[in-house]
């Protein structure tokens, strides 16, 4: 446009346009979707890097992350011990690399588990009106226990293991997902097209599958991403205060717990796991923000 006006009233200039402006290649598909959104690209990139670290941990120049070597304890970061060694002589670099496994496994599992359970309860509550009151009161009750305390209480009861940590954190997130799904169900089920579907003989099952579920998918994906981020934080907090994964497991929270008493003299023990932990959660949150903006443009303007 500007080129045409700059060329003056001569229409002939417009004919040269194809020569001046190279054709724009529109990127479509998943790649284009991601590339047009820098927060998603950055978040996804960081998260994929962490996932790679988690999978490839044994091949990244690491040694046994649980191997004790009292003679080599508390070495500062050097070219042999990239991140130094802790009070038991364990290599912090190896522990941090293997720690990515625990954090990501907990984050993804909690997000999946809480979403699936919340989706089921939300659908049930939104569709079976007789159960709605009871279910929502139970959810209110569960939500009135602060999630970290709930997880702490559950972990105090059970043996420390990654599975138990996942269950303990997921339980606190279920009511939030259920509420979200229920609110979507309550809105969608009153829509004229759902009435039409019902009138034309669709069963409840097919209405849920074809109309309700697709509408819950966008908000549920965004919510699941945020749950993943907060689950990674809660896991590290649980491990840090000694109520999380078994102390021998190299998780970022455990490494920081080991460095707690020494942090004023040996801050590097805490620094490296803290950095990886924060970067991972940042990646997940960026991804969540990007997905929210992309999937719900109305909300994007508001938040």
């Amino acid at each position: 446009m500007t080129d045409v006006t700059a060329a003056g009233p001569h229409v002939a200039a417009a004919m040269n346009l194809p020569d001046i402006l190279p054709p724009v290649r529109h990127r479509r598909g998943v790649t284009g979707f991601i590339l047009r959104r820098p927060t998603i690209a950055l978040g996804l990139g960081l998260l994929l890097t962490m996932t790679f670290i988690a999978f490839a941990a044994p091949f990244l120049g690491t040694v046994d992350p649980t191997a004790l070597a009292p003679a080599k304890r508390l070495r500062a970061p050097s070219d042999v011990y990239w991140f130094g060694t802790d009070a038991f002589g364990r290599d912090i670099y190896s522990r941090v690399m293997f720690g990515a496994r625990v954090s990501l496994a907990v984050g993804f599992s909690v997000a999946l588990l809480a979403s699936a359970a919340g989706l089921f309860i939300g659908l049930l509550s939104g569709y079976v009106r007789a159960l709605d009151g009871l279910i929502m009161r139970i959810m209110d009750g569960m939500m009135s226990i602060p999630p970290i305390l709930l997880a702490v209480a559950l972990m105090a009861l059970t043996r420390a293991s990654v599975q138990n940590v996942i269950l303990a954190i997921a339980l606190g997130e279920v009511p939030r997902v259920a509420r979200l799904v229920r609110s979507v169900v309550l809105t969608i089920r009153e829509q004229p097209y759902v009435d039409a579907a019902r009138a034309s003989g669709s069963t409840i099952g097919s209405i849920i599958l074809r109309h309700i579920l697709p509408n819950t998918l966008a908000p549920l994906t965004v919510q699941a991403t945020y749950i993943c981020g907060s689950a990674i934080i809660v896991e590290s907090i649980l491990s840090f205060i000694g109520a999380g994964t078994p102390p021998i497991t190299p998780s970022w929270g455990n490494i920081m717990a080991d460095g707690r008493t020494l942090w004023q003299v040996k801050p590097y023990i805490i620094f490296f796991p803290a950095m990886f932990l924060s970067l991972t959660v940042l990646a997940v949150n960026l991804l969540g923000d990007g997905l929210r903006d992309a999937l719900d443009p109305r909300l994007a303007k508001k938040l």
Partner: protein
Amino acid sequence: MLRFIVKRVLATIPVMAFVALFVFSLLYIAPGDPAAVIAGDQASPQDIERIRLSLGLDRPFLVRFLEWAGQILQGNLGTSMFTGLPVTELIQQRIEPTLSLMIVTLTFAILMAVPIGVLAAWKAGSALDRLFMAFTVLGFSLPVFVAGYILAYIFALQLDWLPSQGYTPLAQGLWPWFENLILPAIALGFVYIALIARTTRAAMLEVLSQDYVRTARAKGMGESDILFLHALKNAAVPIVTVIGIGVALLIGGAVVTESVFAIPGLGRLTIDAILRRDYPLIQGIVLMFSMVYVLVNLAVDLIYMFVDPRIRY
């Protein structure tokens, strides 16, 4: 008005009852035999059986729950298995530092977050707005203990401006008390500020697009009056809600913050209770914090009625 307040207060009773039932069930299904723990390693099976009978552990679930609930209503949270002291006494000893930390954090967070949110909404889309919003993403991503260690490292260890450890009771002077709480409160406040600032911005954006704001501008009202008198007042409900919900973050975060800054509060008590598997104490702490959370949100709902007279329950 009174009728609505009473109605809302009564509505918290089933929630509290659920919390009590849940917390009790947790300990009911707890592995390990409390009688065996109390009796110690050298006890004979007869000793354990005697202790079990004296504690009433052989009676059915419902009987024990009702008795336990009755005790709680009388303010008795049981006895700590490890120290032998009443749980209420242990909580009382440790409550001041935790309460101080939470109140200072709450005040600090609101004073920071609301102006940030208002400014971001006022200058929506500007570089300032983007800067503030980037800050909130960081706030959500920085775990509270990471923030704590970074602050302690810079301001206590390197610059030596503030103490990095410990707590001074308020009775020993305002400044010594406050000085010890500055760094923990900032660390704990990060995520809370992010949460409140985002909600404030969203609520303000909604209000600023309303007709009455345009009218206020048209009649020549100053921008600050529009923002803080008209808009903020109308945006208050979601902001107050999120402040109430965020108290859960504060409670969970306080446990960790106290551990980073060596504050002898309820957080330390919680961690000790977990490490020693002192179930009555864990039960008491979880119950107390949950009740606080329920009451805070009750207060929030009551505040609504004053902020927005249209709201009635």
